[in-house]
Protein backbone atom coordinates (compact mmCIF):
# COMPACT_ATOMS: atom_id res chain seq x y z
CA UNK A 1 0.00 0.00 0.00
CA UNK A 2 1.48 3.32 -0.91
CA UNK A 3 1.44 6.37 1.26
CA UNK A 4 -1.21 8.25 -0.73
CA UNK A 5 -3.88 5.59 -0.31
CA UNK A 6 -2.99 5.29 3.35
CA UNK A 7 -3.37 9.06 3.88
CA UNK A 8 -6.68 9.13 2.02
CA UNK A 9 -8.01 6.30 4.11
CA UNK A 10 -6.82 7.97 7.29
CA UNK A 11 -8.51 11.23 6.35
CA UNK A 12 -11.65 9.30 5.48
CA UNK A 13 -11.63 7.59 8.86
CA UNK A 14 -11.22 10.95 10.59
CA UNK A 15 -14.11 12.27 8.52
CA UNK A 16 -16.20 9.34 9.68
CA UNK A 17 -15.43 10.17 13.29
CA UNK A 18 -16.59 13.74 12.63
CA UNK A 19 -19.78 12.45 10.98
CA UNK A 20 -20.34 10.18 13.97
CA UNK A 21 -19.96 12.99 16.50
CA UNK A 22 -22.11 15.32 14.46
CA UNK A 23 -24.79 12.68 14.13
CA UNK A 24 -24.85 11.98 17.87
CA UNK A 25 -25.15 15.69 18.66
CA UNK A 26 -27.91 16.25 16.12
CA UNK A 27 -29.84 13.16 17.11
CA UNK A 28 -29.62 13.88 20.83
CA UNK A 29 -31.18 17.28 20.28
CA UNK A 30 -33.65 16.10 17.67
CA UNK A 31 -34.85 13.20 19.78
CA UNK A 32 -35.55 15.38 22.79
CA UNK A 33 -37.23 17.94 20.59
CA UNK A 34 -39.40 15.41 18.77
CA UNK A 35 -40.42 13.45 21.85
CA UNK A 36 -41.21 16.78 23.50
CA UNK A 37 -43.49 17.76 20.67
CA UNK A 38 -45.22 14.38 20.86
CA UNK A 39 -45.95 15.25 24.49
CA UNK A 40 -47.05 18.74 23.36
CA UNK A 41 -44.16 20.41 25.09
CA UNK A 42 -41.42 22.35 23.37
CA UNK A 43 -38.40 20.30 24.46
CA UNK A 44 -35.05 22.08 24.97
CA UNK A 45 -35.70 25.78 24.46
CA UNK A 46 -33.39 28.08 26.37
CA UNK A 47 -29.94 26.67 25.64
CA UNK A 48 -29.05 28.41 22.43
CA UNK A 49 -31.55 28.75 19.61
CA UNK A 50 -34.37 26.31 20.40
CA UNK A 51 -31.97 24.40 22.61
CA UNK A 52 -29.52 23.55 19.84
CA UNK A 53 -26.60 23.85 22.27
CA UNK A 54 -28.18 21.34 24.66
CA UNK A 55 -26.02 18.35 23.55
CA UNK A 56 -22.88 20.45 24.05
CA UNK A 57 -23.95 21.35 27.58
CA UNK A 58 -24.69 17.69 28.32
CA UNK A 59 -21.34 16.69 26.89
CA UNK A 60 -19.42 19.27 28.94
CA UNK A 61 -21.22 18.18 32.07
CA UNK A 62 -20.61 14.50 31.44
CA UNK A 63 -16.95 15.12 30.71
CA UNK A 64 -16.53 16.94 34.00
CA UNK A 65 -18.42 14.48 36.18
CA UNK A 66 -16.61 12.33 38.67
CA UNK A 67 -15.70 9.05 37.08
CA UNK A 68 -16.88 6.32 39.39
CA UNK A 69 -15.76 2.75 38.98
CA UNK A 70 -17.47 0.44 41.47
CA UNK A 71 -14.99 -1.30 43.71
CA UNK A 72 -16.04 -4.82 42.83
CA UNK A 73 -16.39 -4.08 39.13
CA UNK A 74 -14.09 -5.74 36.65
CA UNK A 75 -12.00 -2.71 35.82
CA UNK A 76 -10.68 -3.87 32.46
CA UNK A 77 -14.03 -4.84 31.04
CA UNK A 78 -15.71 -1.87 32.65
CA UNK A 79 -13.48 0.34 30.53
CA UNK A 80 -13.58 -1.94 27.51
CA UNK A 81 -17.35 -2.43 27.35
CA UNK A 82 -18.38 0.91 25.81
CA UNK A 83 -15.51 0.67 23.33
CA UNK A 84 -16.55 -2.83 22.25
CA UNK A 85 -20.06 -1.48 21.76
CA UNK A 86 -18.97 1.63 19.83
CA UNK A 87 -16.25 0.24 17.61
CA UNK A 88 -18.28 -2.34 15.60
CA UNK A 89 -20.96 0.23 14.81
CA UNK A 90 -18.21 2.58 13.75
CA UNK A 91 -16.57 -0.10 11.62
CA UNK A 92 -19.87 -0.89 9.95
CA UNK A 93 -19.99 2.76 8.89
CA UNK A 94 -16.78 2.21 6.91
CA UNK A 95 -18.52 0.15 4.23
CA UNK A 96 -21.79 2.07 4.08
CA UNK A 97 -21.74 4.15 0.88
CA UNK A 98 -22.95 7.74 0.69
CA UNK A 99 -22.82 7.88 -3.11
CA UNK A 100 -22.00 5.20 -5.76
CA UNK A 101 -18.71 3.72 -4.62
CA UNK A 102 -18.14 6.57 -2.17
CA UNK A 103 -17.39 4.68 1.00
CA UNK A 104 -14.24 4.18 3.00
CA UNK A 105 -14.11 0.62 1.64
CA UNK A 106 -16.74 -0.34 -0.91
CA UNK A 107 -16.06 -4.02 -0.51
CA UNK A 108 -17.75 -6.82 -2.46
CA UNK A 109 -19.49 -8.37 0.53
CA UNK A 110 -20.40 -5.17 2.33
CA UNK A 111 -23.82 -6.51 3.26
CA UNK A 112 -22.31 -9.38 5.25
CA UNK A 113 -19.67 -7.13 6.75
CA UNK A 114 -22.31 -4.86 8.24
CA UNK A 115 -24.21 -7.80 9.70
CA UNK A 116 -20.99 -9.28 11.05
CA UNK A 117 -20.23 -6.03 12.81
CA UNK A 118 -23.75 -5.86 14.20
CA UNK A 119 -23.23 -9.35 15.57
CA UNK A 120 -20.31 -8.13 17.67
CA UNK A 121 -22.40 -5.44 19.37
CA UNK A 122 -24.11 -7.86 21.81
CA UNK A 123 -20.63 -8.65 23.15
CA UNK A 124 -20.20 -5.00 23.98
CA UNK A 125 -23.55 -4.78 25.68
CA UNK A 126 -22.91 -7.98 27.59
CA UNK A 127 -19.55 -6.68 28.77
CA UNK A 128 -21.13 -3.37 29.80
CA UNK A 129 -23.80 -5.15 31.76
CA UNK A 130 -21.65 -7.82 33.31
CA UNK A 131 -18.60 -5.83 34.36
CA UNK A 132 -20.40 -3.37 36.65
CA UNK A 133 -21.07 -5.98 39.35
CA UNK A 134 -24.72 -5.11 39.52
CA UNK A 135 -27.56 -7.56 39.30
CA UNK A 136 -29.80 -5.21 37.32
CA UNK A 137 -27.23 -4.55 34.67
CA UNK A 138 -26.46 -8.26 34.44
CA UNK A 139 -30.13 -9.02 33.80
CA UNK A 140 -30.14 -6.24 31.23
CA UNK A 141 -27.08 -7.69 29.54
CA UNK A 142 -28.59 -11.15 29.30
CA UNK A 143 -31.79 -9.73 27.90
CA UNK A 144 -29.80 -7.71 25.42
CA UNK A 145 -27.89 -10.76 24.25
CA UNK A 146 -31.04 -12.85 23.88
CA UNK A 147 -32.83 -10.08 22.05
CA UNK A 148 -30.04 -9.23 19.63
CA UNK A 149 -29.37 -12.86 18.77
CA UNK A 150 -33.00 -13.74 18.16
CA UNK A 151 -33.70 -10.67 16.08
CA UNK A 152 -30.63 -11.14 13.94
CA UNK A 153 -32.06 -14.28 12.34
CA UNK A 154 -35.13 -12.78 10.64
CA UNK A 155 -33.05 -9.74 9.71
CA UNK A 156 -30.49 -11.88 7.90
CA UNK A 157 -33.15 -13.98 6.17
CA UNK A 158 -34.81 -10.82 4.85
CA UNK A 159 -31.43 -9.55 3.71
CA UNK A 160 -31.02 -12.84 1.83
CA UNK A 161 -34.15 -11.92 -0.13
CA UNK A 162 -32.51 -8.65 -1.12
CA UNK A 163 -29.36 -10.54 -2.09
CA UNK A 164 -31.44 -12.86 -4.24
CA UNK A 165 -33.09 -9.99 -6.04
CA UNK A 166 -30.03 -7.82 -6.49
CA UNK A 167 -27.56 -10.60 -7.29
CA UNK A 168 -24.73 -8.90 -5.43
CA UNK A 169 -23.65 -8.31 -1.88
CA UNK A 170 -21.95 -5.04 -2.74
CA UNK A 171 -24.06 -2.28 -1.22
CA UNK A 172 -23.51 0.03 -4.20
CA UNK A 173 -24.88 -2.62 -6.56
CA UNK A 174 -27.87 -3.23 -4.32
CA UNK A 175 -28.73 0.47 -4.34
CA UNK A 176 -28.18 0.79 -8.09
CA UNK A 177 -30.58 -2.10 -8.66
CA UNK A 178 -33.32 0.13 -7.24
CA UNK A 179 -32.79 3.09 -9.54
CA UNK A 180 -36.48 3.20 -10.51
CA UNK A 181 -38.47 0.91 -8.22
CA UNK A 182 -37.32 0.49 -4.67
CA UNK A 183 -37.21 -2.86 -2.94
CA UNK A 184 -39.67 -1.33 -0.50
CA UNK A 185 -42.27 -1.64 -3.27
CA UNK A 186 -41.11 -5.03 -4.48
CA UNK A 187 -40.71 -6.61 -1.03
CA UNK A 188 -43.02 -4.76 1.37
CA UNK A 189 -43.14 -7.67 3.83
CA UNK A 190 -39.37 -7.69 3.81
CA UNK A 191 -39.29 -3.98 4.63
CA UNK A 192 -41.71 -4.42 7.51
CA UNK A 193 -39.75 -7.29 9.04
CA UNK A 194 -36.43 -5.57 8.45
CA UNK A 195 -37.67 -2.37 10.05
CA UNK A 196 -38.94 -4.19 13.16
CA UNK A 197 -35.78 -6.23 13.52
CA UNK A 198 -33.59 -3.19 12.91
CA UNK A 199 -35.36 -1.28 15.68
CA UNK A 200 -34.86 -4.29 17.94
CA UNK A 201 -31.19 -4.49 16.98
CA UNK A 202 -30.70 -0.84 17.96
CA UNK A 203 -32.20 -1.53 21.40
CA UNK A 204 -34.64 1.26 20.80
CA UNK A 205 -38.07 1.54 22.32
CA UNK A 206 -40.41 -0.43 22.10
CA UNK A 207 -37.65 -3.04 22.25
CA UNK A 208 -35.44 -1.33 24.83
CA UNK A 209 -35.23 -4.37 27.04
CA UNK A 210 -31.61 -3.78 28.09
CA UNK A 211 -32.53 -0.37 29.47
CA UNK A 212 -35.91 -1.11 30.98
CA UNK A 213 -36.22 1.70 33.49
CA UNK A 214 -39.35 0.36 35.10
CA UNK A 215 -37.88 -3.06 35.84
CA UNK A 216 -34.10 -2.78 35.83
CA UNK A 217 -32.83 0.41 37.38
CA UNK A 218 -31.17 1.79 34.29
CA UNK A 219 -30.49 -1.53 32.60
CA UNK A 220 -27.04 -2.33 31.33
CA UNK A 221 -25.53 1.04 32.17
CA UNK A 222 -26.72 1.28 35.76
CA UNK A 223 -23.17 1.61 37.06
CA UNK A 224 -21.88 3.88 34.33
CA UNK A 225 -21.26 7.50 35.25
CA UNK A 226 -19.91 10.51 33.46
CA UNK A 227 -18.38 10.19 30.04
CA UNK A 228 -18.46 6.38 30.00
CA UNK A 229 -22.23 6.69 30.11
CA UNK A 230 -21.89 9.21 27.30
CA UNK A 231 -19.97 6.58 25.31
CA UNK A 232 -22.74 4.05 25.84
CA UNK A 233 -25.26 6.58 24.59
CA UNK A 234 -22.98 7.26 21.64
CA UNK A 235 -22.96 3.54 20.85
CA UNK A 236 -26.76 3.52 20.88
CA UNK A 237 -27.05 6.49 18.56
CA UNK A 238 -24.41 5.06 16.23
CA UNK A 239 -26.23 1.74 16.12
CA UNK A 240 -29.34 3.72 15.24
CA UNK A 241 -27.47 5.45 12.43
CA UNK A 242 -26.13 2.17 11.05
CA UNK A 243 -29.49 0.44 11.27
CA UNK A 244 -31.40 3.20 9.54
CA UNK A 245 -28.64 3.54 6.94
CA UNK A 246 -29.09 -0.16 6.15
CA UNK A 247 -32.85 0.32 5.83
CA UNK A 248 -32.30 3.20 3.41
CA UNK A 249 -29.72 1.30 1.35
CA UNK A 250 -31.55 -2.00 1.14
CA UNK A 251 -35.15 -0.88 0.80
CA UNK A 252 -35.53 2.84 0.26
CA UNK A 253 -33.32 3.25 -2.77
CA UNK A 254 -30.33 4.96 -1.19
CA UNK A 255 -29.36 7.92 -3.32
CA UNK A 256 -32.07 7.23 -5.90
CA UNK A 257 -35.27 9.20 -5.90
CA UNK A 258 -36.79 8.44 -9.27
CA UNK A 259 -37.39 10.48 -11.48
CA UNK A 260 -35.01 13.00 -9.92
CA UNK A 261 -31.29 12.50 -10.56
CA UNK A 262 -29.47 10.43 -7.93
CA UNK A 263 -27.77 12.44 -5.22
CA UNK A 264 -26.35 11.83 -1.73
CA UNK A 265 -28.79 14.47 -0.51
CA UNK A 266 -31.68 12.05 -0.91
CA UNK A 267 -29.79 9.46 1.10
CA UNK A 268 -29.15 11.82 3.99
CA UNK A 269 -32.74 13.03 3.85
CA UNK A 270 -34.10 9.48 3.95
CA UNK A 271 -31.64 8.59 6.70
CA UNK A 272 -32.91 11.29 9.01
CA UNK A 273 -36.53 10.61 8.07
CA UNK A 274 -36.09 6.97 9.09
CA UNK A 275 -34.39 7.99 12.34
CA UNK A 276 -37.21 10.44 13.04
CA UNK A 277 -39.65 7.62 12.43
CA UNK A 278 -37.83 5.50 14.98
CA UNK A 279 -38.06 8.34 17.50
CA UNK A 280 -41.75 8.63 16.68
CA UNK A 281 -42.13 4.94 17.53
CA UNK A 282 -40.38 5.60 20.82
CA UNK A 283 -42.81 8.38 21.63
CA UNK A 284 -45.80 6.22 20.79
CA UNK A 285 -45.38 2.63 21.89
CA UNK A 286 -44.96 0.98 25.22
CA UNK A 287 -42.14 -1.36 25.99
CA UNK A 288 -42.86 -4.99 25.14
CA UNK A 289 -42.72 -7.66 27.79
CA UNK A 290 -39.67 -9.88 27.54
CA UNK A 291 -41.57 -13.05 26.71
CA UNK A 292 -43.81 -11.33 24.13
CA UNK A 293 -40.78 -9.84 22.52
CA UNK A 294 -39.02 -13.18 22.20
CA UNK A 295 -42.29 -14.77 21.06
CA UNK A 296 -42.65 -12.16 18.35
CA UNK A 297 -39.27 -13.00 16.91
CA UNK A 298 -39.36 -16.78 17.10
CA UNK A 299 -43.04 -17.41 16.43
CA UNK A 300 -43.91 -14.75 13.89
CA UNK A 301 -40.96 -12.92 12.41
CA UNK A 302 -38.80 -15.93 11.51
CA UNK A 303 -41.62 -17.83 9.72
CA UNK A 304 -42.72 -14.63 8.03
CA UNK A 305 -39.20 -13.88 6.86
CA UNK A 306 -38.82 -17.45 5.53
CA UNK A 307 -42.11 -17.07 3.65
CA UNK A 308 -40.86 -13.75 2.30
CA UNK A 309 -37.66 -15.40 1.12
CA UNK A 310 -39.62 -18.13 -0.61
CA UNK A 311 -41.92 -15.58 -2.27
CA UNK A 312 -38.97 -13.52 -3.46
CA UNK A 313 -37.30 -16.67 -4.80
CA UNK A 314 -40.38 -17.67 -6.77
CA UNK A 315 -40.86 -14.16 -8.13
CA UNK A 316 -37.19 -13.74 -8.99
CA UNK A 317 -37.13 -17.00 -10.97
CA UNK A 318 -40.46 -16.30 -12.67
CA UNK A 319 -40.02 -12.68 -13.72
CA UNK A 320 -36.86 -11.41 -15.31
CA UNK A 321 -35.47 -8.31 -13.67
CA UNK A 322 -37.42 -8.54 -10.45
Amino acid at each position, binding site marked *: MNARIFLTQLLGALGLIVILGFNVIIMDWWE*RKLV*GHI*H*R*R*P*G*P*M*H*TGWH*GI*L*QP*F*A*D*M*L*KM*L*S*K*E*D*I*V*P*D*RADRLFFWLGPAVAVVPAFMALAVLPLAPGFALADIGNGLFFVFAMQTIMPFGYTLIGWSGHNKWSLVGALRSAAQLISYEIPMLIVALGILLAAGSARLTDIVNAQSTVWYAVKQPIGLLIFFITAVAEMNRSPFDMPEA*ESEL*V*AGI*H*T*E*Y*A*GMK*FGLVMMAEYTAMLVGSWMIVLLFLGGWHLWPLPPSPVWLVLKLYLVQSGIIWLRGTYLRLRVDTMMEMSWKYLIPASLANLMLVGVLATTFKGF
Partner: protein
Amino acid sequence: MGLIENAERPNFILTTIDTLLRWGRSHSLWWCNAGSACCSLEFAAMGGARYDMDRIGSGLVRASPRQSDVLLIPGPITKKMAPIFVRVYNQMPDPKWVIAMGSCAISGGAFRESYSMTRGADTVLPVDVYVPGCPVRPEALFYGLLKLRARVRGTSNIGLAHREPIYVPPDLPPEWEAEVREFLGEHEAC
Protein backbone atom coordinates in the same frame (compact mmCIF):
# COMPACT_ATOMS: atom_id res chain seq x y z
CA MET B 1 -12.45 16.38 37.49
CA GLY B 2 -9.84 17.29 39.95
CA LEU B 3 -7.94 19.64 37.67
CA ILE B 4 -10.16 22.65 38.23
CA GLU B 5 -11.11 21.95 41.79
CA ASN B 6 -7.57 21.37 43.01
CA ALA B 7 -6.01 24.34 41.21
CA GLU B 8 -4.12 26.63 43.54
CA ARG B 9 -4.60 29.90 41.71
CA PRO B 10 -6.58 30.71 38.60
CA ASN B 11 -5.06 31.58 35.26
CA PHE B 12 -6.58 32.41 31.89
CA ILE B 13 -7.01 28.83 30.68
CA LEU B 14 -8.45 27.60 33.92
CA THR B 15 -10.98 30.40 34.15
CA THR B 16 -12.08 29.81 30.56
CA ILE B 17 -12.56 26.11 31.19
CA ASP B 18 -14.30 26.92 34.42
CA THR B 19 -16.74 29.28 32.69
CA LEU B 20 -17.50 26.62 30.11
CA LEU B 21 -18.01 23.97 32.76
CA ARG B 22 -20.28 26.20 34.79
CA TRP B 23 -22.35 26.87 31.69
CA GLY B 24 -22.54 23.20 30.82
CA ARG B 25 -23.37 22.04 34.31
CA SER B 26 -26.03 24.65 34.86
CA HIS B 27 -27.76 23.82 31.59
CA SER B 28 -27.93 20.10 32.12
CA LEU B 29 -28.96 19.25 35.64
CA TRP B 30 -30.35 15.74 35.49
CA TRP B 31 -32.54 14.48 38.24
CA CYS B 32 -32.47 11.54 40.54
CA ASN B 33 -35.94 11.39 41.99
CA ALA B 34 -35.93 9.75 45.39
CA GLY B 35 -39.72 9.71 45.18
CA SER B 36 -40.43 9.39 48.88
CA ALA B 37 -43.93 10.89 48.87
CA CYS B 38 -46.66 12.78 47.11
CA CYS B 39 -44.63 15.84 46.02
CA SER B 40 -43.16 13.45 43.48
CA LEU B 41 -46.39 13.79 41.53
CA GLU B 42 -45.95 17.54 41.34
CA PHE B 43 -42.45 16.86 40.11
CA ALA B 44 -43.93 14.64 37.42
CA ALA B 45 -46.28 17.49 36.52
CA MET B 46 -43.25 19.72 36.10
CA GLY B 47 -42.00 17.34 33.43
CA GLY B 48 -45.33 17.52 31.64
CA ALA B 49 -46.46 19.82 28.91
CA ARG B 50 -47.47 22.85 30.92
CA TYR B 51 -44.23 23.42 32.79
CA ASP B 52 -41.76 21.29 30.84
CA MET B 53 -38.45 21.26 32.67
CA ASP B 54 -36.81 19.86 29.54
CA ARG B 55 -36.81 23.44 28.19
CA ILE B 56 -33.85 24.28 30.39
CA GLY B 57 -32.17 20.93 29.87
CA SER B 58 -33.25 19.24 33.08
CA GLY B 59 -35.76 16.94 31.49
CA LEU B 60 -33.92 13.70 32.01
CA VAL B 61 -34.88 11.82 35.15
CA ARG B 62 -32.29 9.09 35.26
CA ALA B 63 -33.26 5.97 37.10
CA SER B 64 -29.69 5.36 38.22
CA PRO B 65 -28.06 7.78 40.68
CA ARG B 66 -24.77 7.33 38.81
CA GLN B 67 -25.97 9.47 35.93
CA SER B 68 -27.77 12.22 37.80
CA ASP B 69 -26.72 15.57 39.24
CA VAL B 70 -29.58 16.65 41.46
CA LEU B 71 -31.07 14.46 44.14
CA LEU B 72 -34.68 15.46 44.65
CA ILE B 73 -36.25 14.59 47.98
CA PRO B 74 -39.96 15.05 47.47
CA GLY B 75 -41.27 14.10 50.85
CA PRO B 76 -40.62 12.91 54.37
CA ILE B 77 -37.68 10.68 55.12
CA THR B 78 -38.47 7.90 57.53
CA LYS B 79 -35.75 6.83 59.91
CA LYS B 80 -35.74 3.44 58.27
CA MET B 81 -35.13 4.94 54.83
CA ALA B 82 -32.61 7.57 55.87
CA PRO B 83 -29.47 5.40 55.46
CA ILE B 84 -30.69 4.46 51.98
CA PHE B 85 -30.94 8.14 51.08
CA VAL B 86 -27.39 8.70 52.26
CA ARG B 87 -26.34 5.74 50.20
CA VAL B 88 -28.05 7.03 47.06
CA TYR B 89 -26.45 10.42 47.63
CA ASN B 90 -23.05 8.80 47.94
CA GLN B 91 -23.61 6.83 44.77
CA MET B 92 -24.02 10.02 42.76
CA PRO B 93 -20.85 11.33 41.15
CA ASP B 94 -19.53 14.78 42.03
CA PRO B 95 -20.60 17.54 41.51
CA LYS B 96 -24.03 16.91 42.99
CA TRP B 97 -26.77 18.89 44.59
CA VAL B 98 -29.78 18.16 46.74
CA ILE B 99 -33.21 19.79 46.60
CA ALA B 100 -35.58 19.35 49.51
CA MET B 101 -39.08 19.69 48.19
CA GLY B 102 -42.08 20.40 50.37
CA SER B 103 -42.65 20.89 54.06
CA CYS B 104 -41.94 17.27 54.96
CA ALA B 105 -38.50 17.34 53.41
CA ILE B 106 -37.70 20.73 54.93
CA SER B 107 -38.75 20.16 58.51
CA GLY B 108 -40.85 17.04 58.82
CA GLY B 109 -44.04 18.96 58.16
CA ALA B 110 -47.18 17.17 59.21
CA PHE B 111 -45.18 14.12 60.31
CA ARG B 112 -42.89 16.13 62.54
CA GLU B 113 -44.19 14.64 65.76
CA SER B 114 -44.06 11.06 64.51
CA TYR B 115 -41.68 8.61 66.16
CA SER B 116 -40.54 7.18 62.84
CA MET B 117 -39.66 10.33 60.90
CA THR B 118 -36.56 12.42 60.60
CA ARG B 119 -37.19 16.10 61.02
CA GLY B 120 -36.23 17.24 57.59
CA ALA B 121 -33.83 16.11 54.92
CA ASP B 122 -31.06 18.36 56.23
CA THR B 123 -30.64 16.12 59.25
CA VAL B 124 -29.44 13.47 56.80
CA LEU B 125 -28.11 15.17 53.69
CA PRO B 126 -26.42 18.45 52.73
CA VAL B 127 -29.42 20.18 51.21
CA ASP B 128 -28.79 23.01 48.75
CA VAL B 129 -32.22 24.39 47.94
CA TYR B 130 -35.33 24.30 50.09
CA VAL B 131 -38.60 24.62 48.20
CA PRO B 132 -41.50 25.25 50.59
CA GLY B 133 -45.05 24.20 49.82
CA CYS B 134 -47.46 21.40 50.61
CA PRO B 135 -47.52 20.20 47.97
CA VAL B 136 -45.11 22.41 46.11
CA ARG B 137 -46.60 23.94 43.00
CA PRO B 138 -44.70 22.85 39.87
CA GLU B 139 -43.84 26.51 39.25
CA ALA B 140 -42.42 26.79 42.73
CA LEU B 141 -40.17 23.80 42.14
CA PHE B 142 -39.23 25.29 38.80
CA TYR B 143 -38.25 28.44 40.64
CA GLY B 144 -36.15 26.36 43.02
CA LEU B 145 -34.48 24.69 40.06
CA LEU B 146 -33.76 28.09 38.51
CA LYS B 147 -32.21 29.22 41.80
CA LEU B 148 -30.03 26.13 41.90
CA ARG B 149 -29.09 26.75 38.30
CA ALA B 150 -28.09 30.32 39.09
CA ARG B 151 -25.95 29.05 41.94
CA VAL B 152 -24.26 26.43 39.76
CA ARG B 153 -23.69 29.07 37.10
CA GLY B 154 -22.37 31.60 39.56
CA THR B 155 -20.07 29.51 41.74
CA SER B 156 -16.55 29.14 40.48
CA ASN B 157 -15.07 25.68 40.79
CA ILE B 158 -11.46 26.87 40.93
CA GLY B 159 -9.73 26.01 44.15
CA LEU B 160 -12.88 24.38 45.41
CA ALA B 161 -11.38 21.19 46.73
CA HIS B 162 -13.31 18.01 46.30
CA ARG B 163 -15.90 17.21 48.81
CA GLU B 164 -15.23 14.16 50.89
CA PRO B 165 -15.71 11.12 48.66
CA ILE B 166 -18.12 9.63 51.13
CA TYR B 167 -20.64 11.80 52.86
CA VAL B 168 -21.31 10.72 56.40
CA PRO B 169 -24.08 12.57 58.24
CA PRO B 170 -22.54 14.68 61.00
CA ASP B 171 -24.52 13.18 63.85
CA LEU B 172 -24.61 9.61 62.68
CA PRO B 173 -27.07 7.59 64.75
CA PRO B 174 -25.53 4.35 65.98
CA GLU B 175 -28.09 2.20 64.21
CA TRP B 176 -26.98 3.53 60.81
CA GLU B 177 -23.35 3.07 61.57
CA ALA B 178 -23.16 -0.44 60.14
CA GLU B 179 -25.02 0.47 56.98
CA VAL B 180 -22.95 3.52 56.11
CA ARG B 181 -19.66 1.87 57.04
CA GLU B 182 -20.46 -1.14 54.90
CA PHE B 183 -20.95 1.24 52.06
CA LEU B 184 -17.56 2.81 52.72
CA GLY B 185 -15.88 -0.48 52.03
CA GLU B 186 -17.86 -1.11 48.87
CA HIS B 187 -17.46 2.13 47.07
CA GLU B 188 -14.43 3.92 45.83
CA ALA B 189 -14.02 7.06 43.81
CA CYS B 190 -11.70 6.65 40.88
